[in-house]
Structures are given as structure tokens and as C-alpha cells.
């Protein structure tokens, strides 16, 4: 039987991320007036939208008990492919100058292809998902460089950049306008959609089942391999959307974009409660992780902290989150051992009760 205090503790742990987000907001707002503006808060979301969509993809993967470390390269590749098809030859493109809609479709196709390959290698070829996606990350990054002879493709049509860089609408405010970035709204909607999928669709529950215990899931009739392949397709799709967002915001695509992104993506997911062990976590929590991350980023740079302290603090935050995750999940298994010892009468005289 869980005691009252352990229940309370569990509740705190589960919602820790929101406490942290709140704390971060409060701290930075009090420390820096520039932080407090509505402009800035929206801008934070706007800037991290592309990160957020990758977090969604990674969260799907982690919930199923797998990892997709190739997403940063996939993002770069899809962005570059889109850019090449859109831009004029003077601006680094191939000169096809396709319509934005077509470019987006092509990008999505590339993303899905990446997901297809990942899923295939992991489920059919039975390869370790970490190693496969790390290797893919290298291969795809190389591909980006190969296909971009001129390094940068830029100046895309408005229709393309709108989602990543444009405003949804403007609110008159004070002397001017407050632009509500499309990306900010989009990412919120994306997380809501992801949350609905995970919580309210059979597919989403199958993902959680597979992540929790693939054998039990299989026994329940769930086709675990199919689920995992679909998850990687989703991750690939997210890479494409991420590419769209970042290319839209920067109005350009470079081979280096997204390098090193995998760590913030991972960190945001884990901090938000998506467990490394699979089968746990929520998309809402992952959103919280994204928020925390971007708040830290924004707040620390507004306070003009050295970018390298920012890097280091992120790494430590990741380690802390991982440790907490391990404690939370492994802690469950000690209970069974304690129960066994508690029910036996043998050796009761022994006063040093040690639980190994």
C-alpha cells in the first residue's frame, strides 16, 4: 500500500516540470525587465518552434522505447532539399523555383523516407536503435553537404516562410502592433495534437504499451514492429516540418543548421517527464520541457550570460533529468523486495534490518 507521503511525493515528481517552468519564469522576470515583455515571451516560442517539433518526434520515439538521434540531420536535409527546389540559382538553389506547396510536399517525402529507413533497419534488421540513428545522423549530415554545392540556399517565397517566420495576425498594442507568430501558435497546436494522439487514440496507446513492455504488448495482440515503424515515420515527418519551420524563420537553408540539436531535443523530452525507459510521460510534459529549455535559453542570453555557461548548464540539466528519471523508475522495483522481506517472520530477533 502506498503511504500518503509517497503519493504526495510522486505527484510532485510527475509535475516537477511545471514547477520548474514557473520558477524559471518568475526568476527571469524579476531579474530582467527585458524578459518580461509579451514580445519576448512570444519570441521565445517562435524561436524554439523547430526544436519543439523535433521534441514531439523524439517523444513519440521514446514513449515507444526507442530513440531517434538522427532528427537533427534529417531536419537539415529536408530544409536543404526544400531550399534547393525553391531558390533561384543566384540564391543558391537549383533553379526549379517550384511552388511552396510542392516544396513542402517534397520535404515531407524526404522526411518520411528517412523514417522508413530507420524503422526498417530497427525492426526488420533487428539493429540497435541508438546505433542506427547515430549512424544515420552522420550519413544524412554528409548528404546535406553533398547536395548543397553552394552552401546556402535562401530567399524563399512568402508562402513557404510564413509558417516558420510569419505572423498569424497582429494585435494593436501601445504604439504599434504585437505580432503573433504563426510558428508559436503552430507549435502549441502541434503539441496538443500530439497529446491527443498519445492519449486518445488506439495507436497512441499502443505506442505506450510497446514502450512499457514490448512482450506484454505483443501478447495483447499489438503488432509491436508495426507500431515502431510508424513511430519512426512520425519522427521523420517531424523532421520535415522542423525543416520547414527553420528554413522559414531564417529564410535560408545551410548545411550546418541543426547541428548539435539532438541534445536539447533529448533534454527537453526527458525533463518533461518522457522516460528513457519507455512507456511513460505525456506530450504536455514534453511541452513543459521545451518551455523550460527555451526560457532558460532566452533568459540567460538576455542577461548576457556567456553562451558557454549556457551550454554547460544545459548539459548538467540533462544529466540531472536523466538521473531523476532513473530514480523514479527504478524506485518502483525496490517495493517488491521490501514486501517480500516484510512478510516473513524468520529472524525477527535481528535488529539490523538491512535491505540489499
Amino acid at each position, binding site marked *: *500500500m*502506498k503511504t500518503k507521503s509517497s503519493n504526495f511525493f510522486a505527484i510532485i515528481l510527475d509535475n516537477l516540470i511545471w514547477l520548474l517552468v514557473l520558477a524559471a519564469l518568475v526568476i527571469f522576470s524579476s531579474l530582467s525587465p527585458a524578459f518580461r515583455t509579451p514580445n519576448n515571451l512570444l519570441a521565445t516560442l517562435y524561436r524554439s518552434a523547430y526544436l519543439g517539433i523535433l521534441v514531439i518526434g523524439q517523444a513519440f520515439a521514446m514513449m515507444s522505447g526507442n530513440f531517434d538521434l538522427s532528427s537533427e540531420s534529417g531536419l537539415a536535409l529536408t530544409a536543404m532539399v526544400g531550399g534547393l527546389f525553391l531558390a533561384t540559382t543566384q540564391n543558391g538553389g537549383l533553379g526549379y523555383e517550384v511552388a511552396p506547396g510542392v516544396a513542402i510536399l517534397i520535404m515531407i517525402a524526404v522526411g518520411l523516407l528517412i523514417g522508413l529507413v530507420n524503422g526498417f533497419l530497427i525492426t526488420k534488421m533487428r539493429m540497435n536503435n541508438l546505433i542506427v540513428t547515430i549512424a544515420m545522423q552522420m550519413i544524412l549530415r554528409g548528404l546535406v553537404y553533398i547536395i548543397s554545392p553552394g552552401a546556402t540556399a535562401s530567399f524563399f517565397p512568402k508562402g513557404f516562410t510564413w509558417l516558420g517566420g510569419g505572423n498569424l495576425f497582429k494585435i494593436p498594442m501601445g504604439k504599434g502592433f504585437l505580432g503573433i507568430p504563426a510558428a508559436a501558435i503552430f507549435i502549441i497546436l502541434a503539441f496538443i495534437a500530439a497529446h*491527443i494522439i498519445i*492519449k*486518445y*487514440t*488506439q495507436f497512441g*496507446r*499502443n505506442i*505506450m*504499451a510497446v*514502450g*512499457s*513492455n514490448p*512482450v*506484454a*504488448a505483443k*501478447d*495483447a*495482440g*499489438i503488432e509491436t514492429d508495426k507500431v515502431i515503424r510508424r513511430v519512426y515515420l512520425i519522427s521523420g515527418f517531424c523532421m520535415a516540418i522542423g525543416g520547414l519551420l527553420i528554413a522559414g524563420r531564417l529564410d535560408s537553408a545551410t548545411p550546418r543548421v541543426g547541428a548539435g540539436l539532438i541534445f536539447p531535443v533529448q533534454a527537453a523530452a526527458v525533463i518533461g517527464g518522457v*522516460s528513457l525507459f519507455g*512507456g*511513460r510521460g505525456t506530450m504536455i510534459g514534453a511541452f513543459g520541457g521545451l518551455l523550460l529549455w527555451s526560457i532558460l535559453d532566452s533568459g540567460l542570453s538576455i542577461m548576457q550570460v556567456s553562451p558557454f555557461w549556457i551550454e554547460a548548464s544545459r548539459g548538467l540539466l540533462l544529466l540531472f533529468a536523466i538521473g531523476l528519471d532513473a530514480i523514479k523508475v527504478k524506485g*518502483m522495483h525496490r517495493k*517488491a523486495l521490501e*514486501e*517480500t*522481506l516484510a*512478510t*516473513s*517472520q*524468520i*529472524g*525477527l*530477533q*535481528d535488529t*539490523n*534490518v*538491512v535491505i*540489499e
Partner: protein
Amino acid sequence: MNTQDTNSTQSPILVMTNVSKAFPGVQALRSVNLCVLPGEIHGLVGKNGAGKSTLMAVLMGITDPNEGQIEIGGKTFSTMNSREAIDAGIAYVPQHVAMMDSLTVAENILAGELPKNKLGFINWKKVNQEAEERLKQLNLQLDVTKKVEGLGVAEQTMLAISKALFGNARLIILDEPTASLSRADINRLFNFVKSLKDKGVAFVYISHHLEEVFEICDRVTVMRDGRVVDTCEVKDIDVPQLIMMMVGEGVEDYTRDSTCTDEIVFVLNKLTRRGYYEDISLEIKKGEVIGITGLQGCGAEQLGKGLFGLEYRGIGEIKINGKEFTAKKPIDSFNEGLAYLPQDRYRFGLVGVRPVKENVTYPILKRLTRLINLINRNEEKIIVDEYIKGLEIITPNQEQPVRLLSGGNQQKVVFAKLASTKPNVLILHEPTQGVDVRAKMDIFRIIDELAKQGVATVVISTEIRELIGICDRILVMNNGRLTHEYKKGAKDTTPKNILAAIEGGKQNHE
């Protein structure tokens, strides 16, 4: 001999005929016959290595028998895969239940078929309701919104059984379900299981708690050394008879002369470990061989492992040759003069893929190394050769990976390893398990030889006749205490008496 239930007009749910299975080096099952009737709770007992697990593996379609047939659900199989087994209605509930424990009870019950609303989205209210409904049909009440990992062990077991039933299981295998349950929990579990009998569900109940077997089972099958000893109605026998069937007869006519001296070498004083044994006090003399026997759960296994350092030992005093024994890890135990032969040879005894030579010298490498950790190969070769010759280990050469040796020879390699550490005290756990008859004699000779050299030996075993043949004293351990002692040559030292002294593995639950 199968005893058919006299008032049964129903056909059996399961009939296993003449099932045999061999693994490299060991014959795990020999012509096993098993028959389970609908609505029957059929106990399956036997000590470790008797073949219960392998039999269940065959039944579940995990491994194929070399011979024999399985008749279930009207179909006959000579081999079966796990899908077919499940479709035929066989379900397995392991000791540590395999469910999706980060998900709720309701979700586990309805996994894969969660009720949805008109738009196709999951209706969680309905999910919980439906789950509760199903449980109600089985008269089970659980908080369906709780995560499975938050349930107590008894609840998890009952949930697992329920899940199996929802999956149309007709024969459920319960594997040691009461290991960590309190008496109240056990009552609840048993009531639940009994209530399912009326629905025609059959159970195979595997347990080493014999009193529980009598409490809940209708019939019981006893296995030993891969064979079925007998299948009886529970009401026709009692615990001592059951024990007699479970425990091995051993090899005839091996006796040895005592080499016991007067010098006390090994002293245990009030050794106690919460939950496993208490007040264990012993004095063993140089060259003496004592036996400790008792059923699974009596604490002897934990005592052996605890002394050696593989598990927590508890409190209490231990002395070897007058000096306090402080070792908490295996390497320290070796250095302080205590060696242990594990029951599970493959998991604890030998590193299978590595050669004979390496396995023999692992604990004494320190002695064999010269500068910078380098092993003196010549010295090693000589020592290993000595043991191969002395123990008559049959192996093509020193480099042979030990997993390719026969069971008996593997055991000899373990003995060689232990002997090389020149122990004062030797603890052997089921030294003849998985060893063919001829090699058994060799093992006895090895034990005799070591005792002649003055090693104080403790043999933890349930082969009563073997113990009578080789031991100076035999101690019986029940529920964590040493309760009886039988001396070599005394009138009351008979297999019958010793067996009678072993209690049926009852655990103290309150």
C-alpha cells in the same frame, strides 16, 4: 501412472504423452506424461532441476520436445509454437508478472481494444467502466485507474490471471505465485482461483510450498530428474509422502570411511538473516563432512550463498581455524579459506564460453601472476593439468570452452577451481545435480579425497541416500532453523526418518 479422477466424465483439457527433451549435456525430460482435467487445480512439484520449467516451456511452445505429443483443445501437437499454444488456451503467469506496468489496470485489461467514442477517440470513462465490468464477472475488485506497478504482488497476480481468462485461456500455469505474499494475500488469491474452477478453468500450480499445494490442489504430479514419479489425488497422500517422492534416492552403495578429526575448524554462532534463517550455530571439524538437507525455502541455499559472499549474510559470528571470518565478497572468502560450489552451474559456476584452463584458475590468478599482472603460463598449465588428471576431467585439451563438456565434467572443472584455492571449508550445493551416474562416483571420490586432506565440507543437498553415504552428520533445516541431527552409523539415521524430519516448506505468514 496417471490416476484418473473417478467421477470425471469430461475429457481432459491437456494430455502430454511421453514427452522427452534433451539439451546438450543433459536429459531434461524423460517420457513425461501429464494430464489435466477441466476445473482442476493440478499441482506440479519437484526440486530445482527436476524438469518442471522445461516441461512448462514445452507446454508453452517455447521449446520443442524431442519426443512425445501434446493434446490440447482437441488438437494434437508434436511441436508447437507459442502462438499456437496461446490459441489453444494455454496461459502462463510468472512469478514476476509481465504486464505493462507503467500503464493502468484498465489499460492492461483492454490493451489493443480500448473502447472509443463516435469520433474514434478513446473514451476513458468507458475504458474504466468496461474494465471494472470484466473484473466483476470474475468477482475481482481492483482500482482500475491505478498503474499496475503500484499494485501489490497479490493483486498483480490476480490481474494476470484475469487477463489470461479474458484472452480465453483454459489452462493457466501459475509459477510460484505465493513467493512474496502474506497469509491474507494468499487467502484472497486462493479464493479467487477456486472461484474460477466452476467456470471450467484448469490450473497448473507450481510451488515449493507443499502445504499450500495440499490446500488448493486437487491432484499433484511429482517430478524428479526429468521423470514423473507419480500423479496422485491430494487427498490420498500427505506431505511426508510427497517429500519422499520429490527427494532423490541417490546412488546405491557408496559409503566412505570417516576422515573426521578432533580439531574444530569451522564455527558458526547464531547466524541470522532476516527473512531466511535464524540462530544457525554449527561446529565442523577438520576432515568432517556434514550434510544439510531441507526443502526449497528452508534457508539452506541462502546460507550457503551468504557464507560465500554472493548474498547478504546477516549477523552472527563465523570463525575459521579460530580466526574471525570477515569476507563479504567471493574473492575474500577464497582468500580466507572458504569455497562454494553453486547449484546453478551455468549462471554462477562457470563462464561457459571461456576455456577449461581459465575457469580453473580464475580465483588463484593472483598467485600465478608475476610482474605487471602477467600470468605465468607454464605454472598455470602444470596446475591445470594436475587437476585434469587428478579429477579425471574428460576434455580434449585445456583450451576447450567449458560449455562443450558434459555436465559431470563441467562439475569437475568447478571442483578443480575450488580445490585450487586450497580451502579449509568447502560448501557444496547439490554437487551431483545434472551429473550422470558414472561421474557421480567420481564426485564422491573427489569429496572424499578433499576430506582426507582435511577440508571441512558442508554438502547442501536433498539426495538423502547420497548424504547418508558420504556424511559424518546430517542436519535437517526447516524454516530457517536447524532442527534435527543424524549421525553416521546411528540406528535412526535412515532415509525414512530424515525425510520425515523435513517439513513441507511452510512459510511463516501472518
